[in-house]
């Protein structure tokens, strides 16, 4: 089945230790998104790629970076995680801008 896959599902890191979350898709969608969702809050868009075109939200901290080496994969890099970065990180795709998002199961990040 075509889907959005996120690995790992649960990630534990230490304060200040870089961490990378990965997302892959078999839908061949043009757009890939990264959302941060803190407990009992709505998902918040961090950035997205339209093909190789990177779009950063204005309030996304510099600590967060992203890479999209090809259509299928997208990575979220957190250079120096702080306690406030503990959250669920959701990857999503859509065929075109404004279209239906297909979400992955999320990666829950814990920062010790």
């Amino acid at each position, binding site marked *: 089945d075509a889907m959005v896959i996120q690995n790992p599902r649960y990630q534990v890191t230490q304060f200040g230790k870089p961490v990378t979350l990965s997302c892959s898709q078999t839908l061949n969608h043009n757009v890939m998104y990264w959302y941060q969702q803190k407990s009992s809050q*709505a998902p918040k868009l961090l950035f997205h790629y339209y093909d190789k075109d990177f779009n950063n939200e204005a309030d996304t901290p510099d600590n967060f970076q992203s890479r999209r080496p090809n259509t299928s994969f997208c990575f979220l890099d957190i250079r120096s995680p702080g306690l406030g970065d503990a959250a669920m990180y959701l990857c999503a795709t859509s065929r075109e801008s404004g279209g239906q998002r297909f979400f992955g199961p999320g990666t829950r990040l814990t920062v010790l």
Partner: protein
Amino acid sequence: AQSVTQLDSQVPVFEEAPVELRCNYSSSVSVYLFWYVQYPNQGLQLLLKYLSGSTLVKGINGFEAEFNKSQTSFHLRKPSVHISDTAEYFCAVGDTGRRALTFGSGTRLQVQP
């Protein structure tokens, strides 16, 4: 700019009772509207969407929603809920010009036996 307001943070309801989860939006352009469901420790799953056409939209799991342009609302309804419907429900609005999808703050539906 767009915004989404989900008026109820929590909705408790008994099993087999009807439920309505409210959503209002504001936007200066034509919109797409979505309802997503999120079960604990999982990603968001699309329940239904309004892109154009009929204002009454039917989705999965027996849910439906009605787009009301004059009231800028997109309320979600189900005539008879099950325990398994207990989850967080998010309303979202997107437009064809921007690439962002704006989410509401969510409504936790708690179905009690």
